[in-house]
Protein backbone atom coordinates (compact mmCIF):
# COMPACT_ATOMS: atom_id res chain seq x y z
CA UNK A 1 0.00 0.00 0.00
CA UNK A 2 1.47 3.37 -0.96
CA UNK A 3 1.23 6.39 1.34
CA UNK A 4 -1.52 7.99 -0.73
CA UNK A 5 -3.85 5.06 -0.19
CA UNK A 6 -2.88 4.93 3.46
CA UNK A 7 -3.79 8.58 4.02
CA UNK A 8 -7.08 8.03 2.23
CA UNK A 9 -7.85 5.03 4.42
CA UNK A 10 -7.13 7.00 7.59
CA UNK A 11 -9.26 9.89 6.36
CA UNK A 12 -12.16 7.58 5.61
CA UNK A 13 -11.82 5.87 8.97
CA UNK A 14 -12.15 9.25 10.70
CA UNK A 15 -15.11 10.28 8.56
CA UNK A 16 -16.93 7.02 9.21
CA UNK A 17 -16.39 7.37 12.97
CA UNK A 18 -17.81 10.90 12.71
CA UNK A 19 -20.84 9.61 10.81
CA UNK A 20 -21.47 6.97 13.46
CA UNK A 21 -21.17 9.57 16.22
CA UNK A 22 -23.61 11.91 14.45
CA UNK A 23 -25.92 8.95 13.88
CA UNK A 24 -26.28 8.19 17.56
CA UNK A 25 -26.31 11.92 18.47
CA UNK A 26 -30.14 11.93 18.56
CA UNK A 27 -30.08 9.32 21.32
CA UNK A 28 -27.43 11.31 23.18
CA UNK A 29 -29.47 14.52 22.91
CA UNK A 30 -32.68 12.90 24.15
CA UNK A 31 -30.72 11.48 27.08
CA UNK A 32 -29.08 14.87 27.74
CA UNK A 33 -32.43 16.68 27.73
CA UNK A 34 -33.83 14.24 30.27
CA UNK A 35 -30.64 14.36 32.36
CA UNK A 36 -30.58 18.17 32.53
CA UNK A 37 -34.28 18.40 33.36
CA UNK A 38 -33.70 15.91 36.20
CA UNK A 39 -30.55 17.67 37.35
CA UNK A 40 -32.29 21.03 37.72
CA UNK A 41 -35.76 19.80 38.67
CA UNK A 42 -35.29 16.89 41.08
CA UNK A 43 -34.05 19.12 43.92
CA UNK A 44 -37.65 20.28 44.32
CA UNK A 45 -38.60 16.86 45.65
CA UNK A 46 -36.26 17.28 48.64
CA UNK A 47 -38.80 19.84 49.87
CA UNK A 48 -42.06 18.90 48.18
CA UNK A 49 -43.17 15.26 47.99
CA UNK A 50 -44.05 14.07 44.48
CA UNK A 51 -47.69 13.37 45.43
CA UNK A 52 -48.10 16.95 46.73
CA UNK A 53 -46.51 18.31 43.57
CA UNK A 54 -49.00 16.52 41.33
CA UNK A 55 -52.17 16.45 43.45
CA UNK A 56 -52.07 19.59 45.60
CA UNK A 57 -54.62 22.17 44.51
CA UNK A 58 -52.65 25.38 44.87
CA UNK A 59 -49.95 26.88 42.68
CA UNK A 60 -48.68 29.89 44.66
CA UNK A 61 -44.98 29.86 43.81
CA UNK A 62 -44.14 33.30 45.21
CA UNK A 63 -46.27 33.45 48.35
CA UNK A 64 -44.75 32.70 51.76
CA UNK A 65 -44.57 29.76 52.24
CA UNK A 66 -44.76 28.91 48.52
CA UNK A 67 -47.11 26.16 47.35
CA UNK A 68 -46.20 24.05 44.36
CA UNK A 69 -49.28 22.03 43.42
CA UNK A 70 -49.56 21.63 39.67
CA UNK A 71 -53.07 20.13 39.65
CA UNK A 72 -54.65 23.40 38.39
CA UNK A 73 -52.03 23.56 35.62
CA UNK A 74 -52.59 19.91 34.64
CA UNK A 75 -56.35 20.49 34.55
CA UNK A 76 -55.80 23.67 32.51
CA UNK A 77 -53.72 21.72 29.97
CA UNK A 78 -56.24 18.85 29.91
CA UNK A 79 -59.21 21.20 29.39
CA UNK A 80 -57.59 23.17 26.58
CA UNK A 81 -56.23 20.01 24.93
CA UNK A 82 -59.56 18.16 25.13
CA UNK A 83 -61.37 21.18 23.68
CA UNK A 84 -58.86 21.46 20.85
CA UNK A 85 -59.16 17.72 20.14
CA UNK A 86 -62.98 17.85 20.00
CA UNK A 87 -62.73 20.57 17.36
CA UNK A 88 -59.71 19.45 15.36
CA UNK A 89 -60.14 15.66 15.19
CA UNK A 90 -63.41 15.46 13.20
CA UNK A 91 -62.53 18.43 11.01
CA UNK A 92 -58.98 17.21 10.46
CA UNK A 93 -59.96 13.62 9.62
CA UNK A 94 -62.80 14.88 7.41
CA UNK A 95 -60.55 17.12 5.36
CA UNK A 96 -57.87 14.41 5.16
CA UNK A 97 -60.51 12.09 3.60
CA UNK A 98 -61.61 14.83 1.22
CA UNK A 99 -58.08 15.75 0.15
CA UNK A 100 -56.93 12.14 -0.23
CA UNK A 101 -59.98 10.52 -1.82
CA UNK A 102 -62.37 13.03 -3.31
CA UNK A 103 -60.65 16.22 -4.44
CA UNK A 104 -59.57 16.35 -8.10
CA UNK A 105 -55.75 16.45 -8.56
CA UNK A 106 -55.40 20.24 -9.07
CA UNK A 107 -57.64 21.13 -6.12
CA UNK A 108 -55.80 18.57 -4.05
CA UNK A 109 -52.44 20.28 -4.61
CA UNK A 110 -53.87 23.69 -3.68
CA UNK A 111 -55.48 22.33 -0.52
CA UNK A 112 -52.28 20.56 0.52
CA UNK A 113 -50.38 23.83 0.03
CA UNK A 114 -52.98 25.57 2.23
CA UNK A 115 -52.45 23.02 5.01
CA UNK A 116 -48.69 23.42 4.72
CA UNK A 117 -49.14 27.19 4.94
CA UNK A 118 -51.08 26.80 8.18
CA UNK A 119 -48.32 24.61 9.60
CA UNK A 120 -45.75 27.25 8.72
CA UNK A 121 -47.37 30.19 10.56
CA UNK A 122 -45.35 30.79 13.77
CA UNK A 123 -47.26 30.08 16.96
CA UNK A 124 -46.68 33.60 18.28
CA UNK A 125 -48.46 35.00 15.19
CA UNK A 126 -51.42 32.65 15.69
CA UNK A 127 -51.53 33.66 19.34
CA UNK A 128 -51.46 37.33 18.35
CA UNK A 129 -54.36 36.90 15.93
CA UNK A 130 -56.32 34.80 18.43
CA UNK A 131 -55.84 37.45 21.08
CA UNK A 132 -56.87 40.32 18.86
CA UNK A 133 -59.73 38.80 16.82
CA UNK A 134 -61.03 35.64 18.52
CA UNK A 135 -60.99 36.78 22.17
CA UNK A 136 -63.26 39.84 21.65
CA UNK A 137 -65.75 37.65 19.74
CA UNK A 138 -65.89 35.09 22.56
CA UNK A 139 -66.18 37.88 25.10
CA UNK A 140 -69.23 39.42 23.44
CA UNK A 141 -70.94 36.16 22.38
CA UNK A 142 -70.92 34.72 25.90
CA UNK A 143 -71.07 38.06 27.74
CA UNK A 144 -67.88 37.43 29.70
CA UNK A 145 -65.63 39.84 31.62
CA UNK A 146 -62.69 38.63 29.51
CA UNK A 147 -62.36 36.80 26.20
CA UNK A 148 -59.09 35.18 27.24
CA UNK A 149 -60.49 31.78 28.24
CA UNK A 150 -59.93 28.05 27.91
CA UNK A 151 -62.33 28.08 24.95
CA UNK A 152 -60.24 30.67 23.08
CA UNK A 153 -57.20 28.51 23.78
CA UNK A 154 -58.98 25.38 22.54
CA UNK A 155 -60.05 27.01 19.26
CA UNK A 156 -56.62 28.54 18.66
CA UNK A 157 -54.85 25.27 19.40
CA UNK A 158 -57.28 23.31 17.21
CA UNK A 159 -55.83 25.20 14.26
CA UNK A 160 -52.32 24.33 15.32
CA UNK A 161 -53.19 20.63 15.59
CA UNK A 162 -54.97 20.44 12.24
CA UNK A 163 -51.96 20.54 9.89
CA UNK A 164 -50.41 17.61 11.77
CA UNK A 165 -53.64 15.61 11.80
CA UNK A 166 -54.51 16.32 8.16
CA UNK A 167 -51.11 15.59 6.66
CA UNK A 168 -50.41 12.39 8.60
CA UNK A 169 -53.96 11.05 8.20
CA UNK A 170 -53.81 11.86 4.49
CA UNK A 171 -50.56 9.87 4.16
CA UNK A 172 -52.22 6.93 5.93
CA UNK A 173 -55.30 7.09 3.67
CA UNK A 174 -53.22 7.35 0.50
CA UNK A 175 -51.17 4.33 1.62
CA UNK A 176 -54.26 2.05 1.55
CA UNK A 177 -53.70 -0.33 -1.43
CA UNK A 178 -55.63 0.53 -4.59
CA UNK A 179 -57.04 -3.01 -4.85
CA UNK A 180 -59.18 -2.40 -1.76
CA UNK A 181 -60.96 0.44 -3.55
CA UNK A 182 -61.24 -1.44 -6.83
CA UNK A 183 -62.69 -4.51 -5.12
CA UNK A 184 -65.28 -2.43 -3.26
CA UNK A 185 -66.35 -0.54 -6.40
CA UNK A 186 -66.54 -3.83 -8.33
CA UNK A 187 -68.89 -5.20 -5.69
CA UNK A 188 -71.25 -2.31 -6.40
CA UNK A 189 -70.36 0.00 -3.51
CA UNK A 190 -70.65 3.73 -4.13
CA UNK A 191 -67.60 5.94 -3.89
CA UNK A 192 -68.70 7.16 -0.46
CA UNK A 193 -69.33 3.64 0.86
CA UNK A 194 -65.86 2.67 -0.35
CA UNK A 195 -64.26 5.73 1.21
CA UNK A 196 -65.98 5.38 4.56
CA UNK A 197 -66.29 1.64 5.11
CA UNK A 198 -63.21 0.33 3.32
CA UNK A 199 -60.52 3.02 2.98
CA UNK A 200 -61.11 4.84 6.27
CA UNK A 201 -61.44 1.49 8.05
CA UNK A 202 -58.15 0.22 6.63
CA UNK A 203 -56.38 3.47 7.52
CA UNK A 204 -57.49 3.44 11.16
CA UNK A 205 -54.08 2.88 12.81
CA UNK A 206 -52.52 5.70 10.78
CA UNK A 207 -55.41 8.03 11.57
CA UNK A 208 -55.09 7.19 15.25
CA UNK A 209 -51.38 8.04 15.07
CA UNK A 210 -52.28 11.32 13.35
CA UNK A 211 -54.67 12.23 16.15
CA UNK A 212 -52.10 11.33 18.81
CA UNK A 213 -49.39 13.42 17.18
CA UNK A 214 -51.83 16.32 16.83
CA UNK A 215 -52.66 16.10 20.52
CA UNK A 216 -48.97 15.84 21.35
CA UNK A 217 -48.40 19.09 19.49
CA UNK A 218 -51.27 20.77 21.39
CA UNK A 219 -50.00 19.72 24.83
CA UNK A 220 -46.54 21.08 24.06
CA UNK A 221 -47.70 24.30 22.42
CA UNK A 222 -46.59 27.29 24.43
CA UNK A 223 -46.72 30.80 23.00
CA UNK A 224 -50.17 30.83 21.41
CA UNK A 225 -51.75 29.25 24.46
CA UNK A 226 -50.01 31.69 26.78
CA UNK A 227 -51.37 34.63 24.82
CA UNK A 228 -55.02 33.57 24.61
CA UNK A 229 -55.93 31.60 27.76
CA UNK A 230 -55.72 34.42 30.29
CA UNK A 231 -53.15 32.78 32.55
CA UNK A 232 -55.03 32.21 35.79
CA UNK A 233 -53.54 29.27 37.69
CA UNK A 234 -56.84 28.17 39.24
CA UNK A 235 -58.73 24.90 39.01
CA UNK A 236 -61.13 25.54 36.12
CA UNK A 237 -64.87 24.90 36.56
CA UNK A 238 -65.95 25.86 33.05
CA UNK A 239 -64.45 26.21 29.61
CA UNK A 240 -65.36 29.90 29.69
CA UNK A 241 -62.86 30.66 32.45
CA UNK A 242 -59.25 31.78 32.13
CA UNK A 243 -56.85 28.89 32.69
CA UNK A 244 -53.14 28.33 32.66
CA UNK A 245 -51.39 25.38 31.08
CA UNK A 246 -48.19 23.58 32.12
CA UNK A 247 -46.23 25.05 29.20
CA UNK A 248 -47.44 28.62 29.70
CA UNK A 249 -46.47 28.47 33.38
CA UNK A 250 -42.88 27.59 32.56
CA UNK A 251 -42.61 30.22 29.84
CA UNK A 252 -44.23 32.99 31.89
CA UNK A 253 -42.51 32.43 35.23
CA UNK A 254 -38.95 31.35 34.42
CA UNK A 255 -37.86 34.95 33.98
CA UNK A 256 -38.80 35.82 37.57
CA UNK A 257 -37.08 32.93 39.33
CA UNK A 258 -33.79 32.75 41.18
CA UNK A 259 -31.50 30.17 39.63
CA UNK A 260 -31.28 27.11 41.89
CA UNK A 261 -34.26 28.22 44.00
CA UNK A 262 -37.38 26.20 44.74
CA UNK A 263 -39.51 27.99 42.14
CA UNK A 264 -36.81 27.47 39.50
CA UNK A 265 -36.64 23.75 40.34
CA UNK A 266 -40.45 23.52 40.26
CA UNK A 267 -40.54 24.86 36.69
CA UNK A 268 -37.94 22.29 35.62
CA UNK A 269 -40.05 19.63 37.38
CA UNK A 270 -42.96 20.73 35.17
CA UNK A 271 -40.56 20.29 32.26
CA UNK A 272 -39.97 16.69 33.39
CA UNK A 273 -43.74 16.07 33.42
CA UNK A 274 -44.13 17.56 29.92
CA UNK A 275 -41.17 15.59 28.59
CA UNK A 276 -42.57 12.29 29.90
CA UNK A 277 -46.09 12.98 28.56
CA UNK A 278 -44.90 13.85 25.05
CA UNK A 279 -42.37 10.99 25.07
CA UNK A 280 -45.18 8.48 25.76
CA UNK A 281 -47.56 10.00 23.19
CA UNK A 282 -44.97 10.15 20.42
CA UNK A 283 -43.63 6.68 21.16
CA UNK A 284 -47.15 5.22 21.01
CA UNK A 285 -47.98 7.12 17.80
CA UNK A 286 -44.77 5.81 16.22
CA UNK A 287 -45.82 2.23 17.04
CA UNK A 288 -49.16 2.74 15.30
CA UNK A 289 -47.47 4.30 12.26
CA UNK A 290 -45.22 1.25 11.91
CA UNK A 291 -48.28 -0.97 12.15
CA UNK A 292 -49.78 0.82 9.11
CA UNK A 293 -46.61 0.47 7.07
CA UNK A 294 -46.65 -3.31 7.50
Amino acid at each position, binding site marked *: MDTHTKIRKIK*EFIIERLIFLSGIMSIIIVALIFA*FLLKEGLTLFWQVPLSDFIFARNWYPISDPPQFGILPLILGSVLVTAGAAVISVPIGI*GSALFIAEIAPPKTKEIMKAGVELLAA*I*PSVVIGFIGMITLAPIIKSVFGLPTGLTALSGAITLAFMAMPTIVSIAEDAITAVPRQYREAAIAMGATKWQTTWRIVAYAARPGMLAAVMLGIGRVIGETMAVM*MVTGNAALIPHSILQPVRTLTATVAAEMGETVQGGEHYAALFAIGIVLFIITFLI*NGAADLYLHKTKK
Partner: protein
Amino acid sequence: MNVYLKQKIAFSVLFLCTLLVIVPVLVILAIIFVKGMSAIDISFLTEVPIKGMKEGGIFPAILGTLYLVLGAVLFAVPLGVLSAIYLVEYSRENFLSRLVKLAIVNLAGVPSVVYGLFGLGIFVLYFEFGASILSGSLTLGIMILPVIITASREALESVPKSFRIVSLSLGASKWQTIRHSVLPHALPGILTGTILGLGRAAGETAPILFTVAAFYLPKLPTSIFDQTMALPYHLYVISTQVPGIPENVRYGTALVLLLLVLLLNLAAIILRYQFRKRKRW
Protein backbone atom coordinates in the same frame (compact mmCIF):
# COMPACT_ATOMS: atom_id res chain seq x y z
CA MET B 1 -81.04 6.90 -5.49
CA ASN B 2 -80.89 7.01 -1.74
CA VAL B 3 -77.24 5.97 -1.57
CA TYR B 4 -76.28 8.68 -4.03
CA LEU B 5 -78.05 11.33 -2.02
CA LYS B 6 -76.21 10.08 1.01
CA GLN B 7 -72.96 10.28 -0.92
CA LYS B 8 -73.70 13.84 -1.96
CA ILE B 9 -74.35 14.90 1.63
CA ALA B 10 -71.26 13.12 2.90
CA PHE B 11 -69.00 14.70 0.28
CA SER B 12 -70.41 18.14 1.05
CA VAL B 13 -69.69 17.67 4.75
CA LEU B 14 -66.10 16.60 4.02
CA PHE B 15 -65.68 19.57 1.68
CA LEU B 16 -66.95 21.83 4.45
CA CYS B 17 -64.33 20.36 6.83
CA THR B 18 -61.60 21.18 4.34
CA LEU B 19 -62.89 24.73 3.98
CA LEU B 20 -62.84 25.07 7.76
CA VAL B 21 -59.11 24.31 7.67
CA ILE B 22 -58.18 26.42 4.65
CA VAL B 23 -60.39 29.51 4.96
CA PRO B 24 -59.16 30.64 8.40
CA VAL B 25 -55.59 30.48 7.08
CA LEU B 26 -56.51 32.87 4.30
CA VAL B 27 -58.40 35.11 6.74
CA ILE B 28 -55.41 35.27 9.11
CA LEU B 29 -53.06 36.09 6.25
CA ALA B 30 -55.44 38.72 4.85
CA ILE B 31 -55.90 40.48 8.20
CA ILE B 32 -52.16 40.67 8.84
CA PHE B 33 -51.33 41.79 5.32
CA VAL B 34 -54.01 44.50 5.19
CA LYS B 35 -53.36 45.93 8.64
CA GLY B 36 -49.59 45.43 8.62
CA MET B 37 -48.76 46.95 5.25
CA SER B 38 -49.40 50.50 6.47
CA ALA B 39 -46.71 50.16 9.15
CA ILE B 40 -43.99 48.87 6.88
CA ASP B 41 -41.63 51.30 5.22
CA ILE B 42 -37.86 51.60 4.94
CA SER B 43 -37.41 53.22 8.35
CA PHE B 44 -39.52 50.53 10.07
CA LEU B 45 -37.16 47.91 8.68
CA THR B 46 -33.87 49.73 9.22
CA GLU B 47 -34.18 51.77 12.41
CA VAL B 48 -33.95 50.87 16.08
CA PRO B 49 -37.07 51.08 18.26
CA ILE B 50 -37.50 54.32 20.23
CA LYS B 51 -39.84 55.70 22.92
CA GLY B 52 -40.35 52.36 24.67
CA MET B 53 -40.86 50.53 21.37
CA LYS B 54 -43.89 52.69 20.49
CA GLU B 55 -42.06 54.29 17.56
CA GLY B 56 -39.07 53.69 15.35
CA GLY B 57 -38.23 50.44 13.61
CA ILE B 58 -37.55 46.83 14.42
CA PHE B 59 -34.13 46.43 12.83
CA PRO B 60 -32.40 44.90 15.90
CA ALA B 61 -35.09 42.23 16.10
CA ILE B 62 -34.80 41.36 12.39
CA LEU B 63 -31.01 41.19 12.57
CA GLY B 64 -31.14 39.14 15.79
CA THR B 65 -33.45 36.58 14.21
CA LEU B 66 -31.18 36.32 11.15
CA TYR B 67 -28.13 35.69 13.38
CA LEU B 68 -29.99 33.07 15.45
CA VAL B 69 -31.30 31.24 12.41
CA LEU B 70 -27.91 31.26 10.71
CA GLY B 71 -26.26 29.91 13.86
CA ALA B 72 -28.88 27.18 14.22
CA VAL B 73 -28.37 26.02 10.63
CA LEU B 74 -24.56 26.06 10.88
CA PHE B 75 -24.90 23.68 13.81
CA ALA B 76 -27.80 21.50 12.71
CA VAL B 77 -27.09 20.90 9.00
CA PRO B 78 -23.70 19.14 9.22
CA LEU B 79 -24.86 17.08 12.19
CA GLY B 80 -28.24 16.29 10.61
CA VAL B 81 -26.81 15.30 7.23
CA LEU B 82 -24.14 13.04 8.76
CA SER B 83 -26.82 11.49 10.95
CA ALA B 84 -29.00 10.80 7.90
CA ILE B 85 -25.99 9.28 6.09
CA TYR B 86 -25.52 6.96 9.05
CA LEU B 87 -29.16 5.85 8.99
CA VAL B 88 -29.43 5.37 5.23
CA GLU B 89 -25.97 4.18 4.21
CA TYR B 90 -24.37 2.54 7.23
CA SER B 91 -26.84 1.28 9.82
CA ARG B 92 -28.45 -2.14 9.59
CA GLU B 93 -31.95 -2.95 10.81
CA ASN B 94 -31.07 -3.61 14.42
CA PHE B 95 -31.83 -2.45 17.92
CA LEU B 96 -29.50 0.56 17.70
CA SER B 97 -31.03 1.94 14.52
CA ARG B 98 -34.54 1.43 15.96
CA LEU B 99 -33.44 3.39 19.00
CA VAL B 100 -32.02 6.21 16.85
CA LYS B 101 -35.28 6.46 14.91
CA LEU B 102 -37.31 6.49 18.11
CA ALA B 103 -35.06 9.25 19.47
CA ILE B 104 -35.63 11.35 16.33
CA VAL B 105 -39.42 10.92 16.62
CA ASN B 106 -39.26 12.03 20.23
CA LEU B 107 -36.99 15.00 19.50
CA ALA B 108 -39.60 16.16 16.98
CA GLY B 109 -42.27 15.94 19.68
CA VAL B 110 -40.49 17.60 22.60
CA PRO B 111 -42.40 20.81 23.48
CA SER B 112 -40.57 23.95 22.41
CA VAL B 113 -40.56 25.32 25.95
CA VAL B 114 -38.78 22.16 27.14
CA TYR B 115 -36.05 22.91 24.59
CA GLY B 116 -35.88 26.32 26.22
CA LEU B 117 -35.39 24.73 29.65
CA PHE B 118 -32.75 22.39 28.23
CA GLY B 119 -30.90 25.26 26.56
CA LEU B 120 -30.99 27.21 29.82
CA GLY B 121 -29.69 24.24 31.79
CA ILE B 122 -26.92 23.11 29.44
CA PHE B 123 -25.73 26.10 27.39
CA VAL B 124 -26.52 29.13 29.53
CA LEU B 125 -25.62 27.65 32.93
CA TYR B 126 -23.55 24.45 32.56
CA PHE B 127 -21.29 25.61 29.71
CA GLU B 128 -21.55 29.19 31.02
CA PHE B 129 -22.28 30.75 27.62
CA GLY B 130 -24.78 33.00 29.40
CA ALA B 131 -27.90 34.29 27.69
CA SER B 132 -26.28 34.78 24.29
CA ILE B 133 -26.65 34.29 20.56
CA LEU B 134 -24.51 31.16 20.93
CA SER B 135 -26.85 29.57 23.49
CA GLY B 136 -29.95 30.54 21.52
CA SER B 137 -28.57 29.26 18.21
CA LEU B 138 -27.54 25.92 19.69
CA THR B 139 -30.96 25.49 21.32
CA LEU B 140 -32.76 26.29 18.06
CA GLY B 141 -30.30 24.06 16.19
CA ILE B 142 -31.16 21.07 18.36
CA MET B 143 -34.85 21.81 17.90
CA ILE B 144 -34.65 21.75 14.07
CA LEU B 145 -32.35 18.71 13.99
CA PRO B 146 -35.23 16.23 13.41
CA VAL B 147 -36.49 18.33 10.47
CA ILE B 148 -33.06 18.25 8.82
CA ILE B 149 -32.47 14.55 9.52
CA THR B 150 -35.87 13.51 8.17
CA ALA B 151 -35.54 15.57 4.97
CA SER B 152 -31.96 14.38 4.38
CA ARG B 153 -32.98 10.77 4.92
CA GLU B 154 -35.74 11.03 2.34
CA ALA B 155 -33.35 12.71 -0.09
CA LEU B 156 -30.70 10.01 0.34
CA GLU B 157 -33.24 7.19 0.10
CA SER B 158 -34.58 8.57 -3.19
CA VAL B 159 -31.19 8.08 -4.88
CA PRO B 160 -31.43 4.73 -6.73
CA LYS B 161 -29.45 1.75 -5.43
CA SER B 162 -27.88 1.24 -8.86
CA PHE B 163 -25.86 4.49 -8.47
CA ARG B 164 -24.12 2.98 -5.46
CA ILE B 165 -23.61 -0.43 -7.03
CA VAL B 166 -22.01 1.04 -10.16
CA SER B 167 -19.69 3.26 -8.15
CA LEU B 168 -18.62 0.40 -5.87
CA SER B 169 -18.07 -1.92 -8.82
CA LEU B 170 -15.63 0.60 -10.31
CA GLY B 171 -13.47 0.25 -7.21
CA ALA B 172 -14.60 3.31 -5.28
CA SER B 173 -14.66 2.98 -1.52
CA LYS B 174 -17.86 3.30 0.46
CA TRP B 175 -17.19 6.91 1.46
CA GLN B 176 -16.12 7.87 -2.09
CA THR B 177 -19.38 6.38 -3.35
CA ILE B 178 -21.43 8.38 -0.86
CA ARG B 179 -19.44 11.56 -1.44
CA HIS B 180 -19.42 11.51 -5.25
CA SER B 181 -22.34 9.34 -6.39
CA VAL B 182 -25.02 9.77 -3.75
CA LEU B 183 -24.68 13.16 -2.02
CA PRO B 184 -24.75 15.34 -5.18
CA HIS B 185 -28.11 13.84 -6.16
CA ALA B 186 -29.51 14.21 -2.65
CA LEU B 187 -28.42 17.83 -2.36
CA PRO B 188 -31.64 19.54 -3.52
CA GLY B 189 -33.67 17.48 -1.03
CA ILE B 190 -31.26 18.32 1.77
CA LEU B 191 -31.45 22.00 0.81
CA THR B 192 -35.26 21.89 0.92
CA GLY B 193 -35.13 20.44 4.44
CA THR B 194 -32.60 23.08 5.48
CA ILE B 195 -34.84 25.92 4.31
CA LEU B 196 -37.84 24.41 6.12
CA GLY B 197 -35.67 24.20 9.24
CA LEU B 198 -34.72 27.87 8.78
CA GLY B 199 -38.41 28.81 8.64
CA ARG B 200 -39.19 26.81 11.75
CA ALA B 201 -36.27 28.32 13.69
CA ALA B 202 -37.17 31.86 12.64
CA GLY B 203 -40.68 31.63 14.06
CA GLU B 204 -40.05 29.88 17.38
CA THR B 205 -40.24 31.89 20.57
CA ALA B 206 -40.24 29.53 23.54
CA PRO B 207 -36.72 28.10 22.96
CA ILE B 208 -35.16 31.57 22.92
CA LEU B 209 -37.09 33.00 25.89
CA PHE B 210 -34.49 32.00 28.50
CA THR B 211 -31.46 31.48 26.28
CA VAL B 212 -30.95 34.71 24.35
CA ALA B 213 -33.92 37.00 23.81
CA ALA B 214 -33.68 40.53 25.14
CA PHE B 215 -36.83 42.46 26.06
CA TYR B 216 -35.58 45.79 24.76
CA LEU B 217 -32.05 46.27 23.48
CA PRO B 218 -31.72 49.00 20.91
CA LYS B 219 -28.01 48.43 20.22
CA LEU B 220 -26.88 45.73 17.84
CA PRO B 221 -25.02 42.64 19.08
CA THR B 222 -21.27 42.64 18.44
CA SER B 223 -20.32 39.06 19.34
CA ILE B 224 -21.91 35.64 19.71
CA PHE B 225 -21.81 36.11 23.48
CA ASP B 226 -24.18 39.09 23.34
CA GLN B 227 -27.91 39.02 23.93
CA THR B 228 -30.14 40.13 21.11
CA MET B 229 -33.73 41.01 20.33
CA ALA B 230 -35.59 38.60 18.05
CA LEU B 231 -38.69 39.02 15.90
CA PRO B 232 -41.04 36.43 17.46
CA TYR B 233 -40.15 37.44 21.01
CA HIS B 234 -40.51 41.10 20.08
CA LEU B 235 -44.02 40.42 18.77
CA TYR B 236 -44.88 38.64 22.01
CA VAL B 237 -43.49 41.52 24.08
CA ILE B 238 -45.27 44.31 22.23
CA SER B 239 -48.59 42.47 22.11
CA THR B 240 -48.78 41.30 25.73
CA GLN B 241 -46.12 42.87 27.94
CA VAL B 242 -46.10 46.55 27.03
CA PRO B 243 -49.37 48.49 27.07
CA GLY B 244 -50.08 51.28 24.62
CA ILE B 245 -48.16 50.03 21.59
CA PRO B 246 -49.92 51.37 18.46
CA GLU B 247 -51.83 48.65 16.65
CA ASN B 248 -50.08 49.12 13.32
CA VAL B 249 -46.66 48.57 14.93
CA ARG B 250 -47.88 45.21 16.21
CA TYR B 251 -49.40 44.20 12.90
CA GLY B 252 -46.30 45.45 11.07
CA THR B 253 -44.05 43.28 13.24
CA ALA B 254 -46.35 40.28 12.74
CA LEU B 255 -46.27 40.86 8.98
CA VAL B 256 -42.46 41.04 8.81
CA LEU B 257 -42.17 37.78 10.77
CA LEU B 258 -44.86 36.11 8.67
CA LEU B 259 -43.27 37.23 5.40
CA LEU B 260 -39.87 35.94 6.48
CA VAL B 261 -41.29 32.52 7.39
CA LEU B 262 -43.60 32.23 4.38
CA LEU B 263 -40.92 33.24 1.89
CA LEU B 264 -38.61 30.57 3.28
CA ASN B 265 -41.39 27.98 2.99
CA LEU B 266 -42.27 29.13 -0.51
CA ALA B 267 -38.62 28.80 -1.53
CA ALA B 268 -38.60 25.24 -0.17
CA ILE B 269 -41.81 24.32 -2.02
CA ILE B 270 -40.54 25.74 -5.34
CA LEU B 271 -37.19 24.00 -4.93
CA ARG B 272 -38.90 20.67 -4.25
CA TYR B 273 -41.15 21.11 -7.27
CA GLN B 274 -38.25 21.94 -9.58
CA PHE B 275 -36.29 19.01 -8.23
CA ARG B 276 -39.12 16.55 -8.86
CA LYS B 277 -39.60 17.86 -12.37
CA ARG B 278 -35.94 17.54 -13.31
CA LYS B 279 -35.38 14.12 -11.82
CA ARG B 280 -34.19 11.83 -14.58
CA TRP B 281 -34.50 8.44 -12.92
